[in-house]
C-alpha cells in the first residue's frame, strides 16, 4: 500500500514537474495563432522525452551512476566535454527564462513589475538549492504544478469545439494567412520545449539522490511512462484552451498574462488563483532544477562530490557551480530582455542542441557490458533511432528557420 502511494506520488510529481515556462509560452502562442494544427509537434516532443527519459532513468538505475558519469566513461572525454559545455550554456539560458517566468507569474499576482522580482527569485532559487532538502523541492513543487490542471477544467467550461480540436490534432493544416516557415518554426519550438536537456539530467541525478537500483526500475518507468505523457497532455490543454478564447479574437500571446486569459474566461477568480499557483510552482521548480542540473553535470564530469544528500561543505564545488549559474541567469534577466523572447530562444536553441544530449543516452542505453539484460530492446531501439533521425532533422532546420522567420514573426 505504501509502495502504491509512493508510486502515485512519484507519477504526480513527474506530471507537475514536466511543465515549465517553455511549455507555457509555446503552448499558449501556438494555440492562439495556429489552433490545434501544431498539436502533433507537442505530442511528438512529449513522446521523445518519454522515450529518452526512460532510457536515461534505466541507465541510471542499472549502472547506479548518473547519466553524465556514464557518458564520460563510455563515450570518452572529448565527446562528453562538448556535451558538457553545450548543456551548461543552454542551462544558463533556460534558467534565465525560468527566472523570468517566475517573475512574470509574480507580476500577474501582485502587479509589481517582474524586474523587481528577479533578484529576489534568484536569491530564492539559490537558497532552495543550498538549504531545502531534495525531496521537498521535488515533491512540493511537483504536486503544486498539478494546479495547472485548471486548464483542463477550463476546457470543459469554454465553448470548446471538441470535434474541431480532435481534427486539428489528427489533421494538421497550416491556417490561412500564416506562412509555412513560421509554422515549422513554432513546431520546432514545441519540440524543444518538451525535450529540455536539464530535465533528463535532473531525472537521472535525482534518481541517484534517491538511491535508485534495479529494484526501482518499475517506479522509474511509471514516472517516465505515465508522468511525462500526462505532463504533455497538460501542455496540450493549455494549447487547446487558447483556441476558443484567443484565436477568434486574434489575440497573440506576447506575455504570460495572455496564456491565462482562457482560464479567467472560463473559471473566474478561483481559476485565476489556482492557475497562478501552478505558474509559480512550475517555473520556480524548473529554475531550481536547471541550476542544479548545471552543478550535477559539471561535478559528474569532473568526478567531484555532488548532490544534496551531503552537507554543502562536503560538496562545495557542486554548490559553487549552482551559485554561479544562478548569478549568471539572474544577471541576464536584469538586462531587461523580454522574458517571453528569452523563453522562445532558449527552447529553439535547445531544439538545435538536442541530438548532442540524446545521442549519448541512446548509445549507453545500448551498451550491453553496462546494462546487461536491461539494454535497449529492439522496439525501443527502433523507436529511439527513428526519433533520433527526427531530432537531427529538427536540429538542422532550426537556425535557418530562426533567421528566415526572424524568430517567429
Amino acid at each position, binding site marked *: 500500500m505504501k509502495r502504491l502511494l509512493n508510486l502515485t506520488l512519484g507519477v504526480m510529481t513527474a506530471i507537475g514537474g514536466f511543465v515549465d515556462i517553455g511549455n507555457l509560452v509555446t503552448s499558449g502562442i501556438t494555440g492562439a495563432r495556429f489552433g490545434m494544427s501544431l498539436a502533433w509537434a507537442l505530442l511528438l516532443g512529449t513522446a521523445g522525452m518519454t522515450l529518452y527519459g526512460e532510457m536515461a532513468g534505466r541507465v541510471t538505475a542499472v*549502472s*547506479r*551512476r548518473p547519466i553524465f*558519469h556514464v557518458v*564520460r*566513461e563510455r563515450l*570518452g*572525454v*572529448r565527446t562528453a*566535454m562538448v556535451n558538457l559545455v553545450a548543456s551548461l550554456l543552454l542551462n544558463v539560458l533556460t534558467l534565465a527564462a525560468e527566472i523570468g517566468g517566475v517573475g512574470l507569474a509574480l507580476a500577474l499576482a501582485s502587479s509589481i513589475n517582474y524586474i523587481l522580482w528577479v533578484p529576489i527569485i534568484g536569491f530564492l532559487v539559490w537558497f532552495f538549492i*543550498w*538549504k531545502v532538502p531534495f525531496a521537498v523541492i521535488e515533491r512540493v513543487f511537483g504536486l503544486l504544478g498539478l494546479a495547472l490542471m485548471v486548464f483542463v477544467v477550463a476546457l470543459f467550461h469554454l465553448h470548446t469545439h471538441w470535434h474541431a480540436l480532435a481534427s486539428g490534432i489528427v489533421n494538421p493544416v497550416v491556417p490561412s494567412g500564416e506562412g509555412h516557415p513560421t509554422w515549422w518554426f513554432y513546431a520546432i519550438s514545441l519540440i524543444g520545449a518538451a525535450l529540455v536537456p536539464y530535465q533528463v539530467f535532473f531525472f537521472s541525478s535525482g534518481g541517484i539522490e534517491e538511491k535508485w537500483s534495479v529494484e526501482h526500475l518499475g517506479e522509474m518507468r511509471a514516472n517516465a511512462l505515465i508522468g511525462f505523457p500526462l505532463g504533455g497532455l497538460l501542455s496540450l490543454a493549455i494549447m487547446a484552451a487558447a483556441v476558443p478564447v484567443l484565436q477568434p479574437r486574434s489575440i497573440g500571446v506576447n506575455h504570460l498574462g495572455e496564456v491565462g486569459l482562457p482560464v479567467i474566461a472560463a473559471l473566474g477568480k478561483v481559476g485565476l488563483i489556482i492557475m497562478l499557483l501552478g505558474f509559480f510552482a512550475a517555473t520556480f521548480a524548473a529554475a531550481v532544477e536547471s541550476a542544479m542540473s548545471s552543478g550535477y553535470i559539471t561535478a559528474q564530469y*569532473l*568526478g*567531484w*562530490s*555532488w548532490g544534496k544528500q551531503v*552537507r*554543502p*561543505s*562536503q560538496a*562545495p*564545488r557542486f*554548490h*559553487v557551480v549552482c551559485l554561479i549559474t544562478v548569478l549568471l541567469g539572474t544577471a541576464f534577466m536584469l538586462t531587461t530582455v523580454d522574458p517571453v523572447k528569452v523563453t522562445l530562444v532558449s527552447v529553439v536553441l535547445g531544439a538545435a542542441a538536442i541530438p548532442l544530449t540524446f545521442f549519448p543516452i541512446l548509445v549507453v542505453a545500448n551498451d550491453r557490458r*553496462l546494462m546487461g539484460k536491461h539494454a535497449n530492446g529492439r522496439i525501443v531501439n527502433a523507436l529511439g533511432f527513428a526519433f533520433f533521425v527526427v531530432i537531427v532533422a529538427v536540429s538542422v532546420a532550426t537556425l535557418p528557420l530562426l533567421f528566415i522567420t526572424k524568430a517567429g514573426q
Partner: protein
Amino acid sequence: MTADTSGWGIPVGYANEFLLDREILDKDDTPVGKVDDLDFEILPDGSPVLSAILCGPTALGPRLGGRLGTWWVSIARRLRPNDDPTPVHVGIDDVDHVDRETLRLRITGSNAGTLRLQRWVDAKIVKRIPGGE
C-alpha cells in the same frame, strides 16, 4: 568481476577500457575524482603493468588533446602556481577494490591528495556563506 591488488598484471588495452574515466571513491565512499589517466611501469620482461592512477586537470588535459587540452592544463597550472605541475598519483597499492560499479581506495581522499580544490572552495567560499558547514 573484481580484482584484488596483488598481481595487477592488467593488459594495457583492458585497463584503458575498464578503468579510464571511472569514478574513484575513497575509503569512506566519498567521490574523490575520476581516473583521468593511467600510469604504467615496464616490467623486466618488457610488458607494461599498471602502476598508478592519475587524477586531476593536468592528467585530463593531455587526454582532451589539441588546443583545448593545452589550455586546460595551463589553467590548472595557473591555479596552483607553487605546486608541482604533475598530476595526483594514486599508487596501485592504494586501490582496495575494483568492479563494474565502483573503484574504491584504501585511503581517504585527503591522503590521496585529490581534494585540494574541494578543500579550497570549501574554506574560501562555502564556509563563508551562512549555513555552509
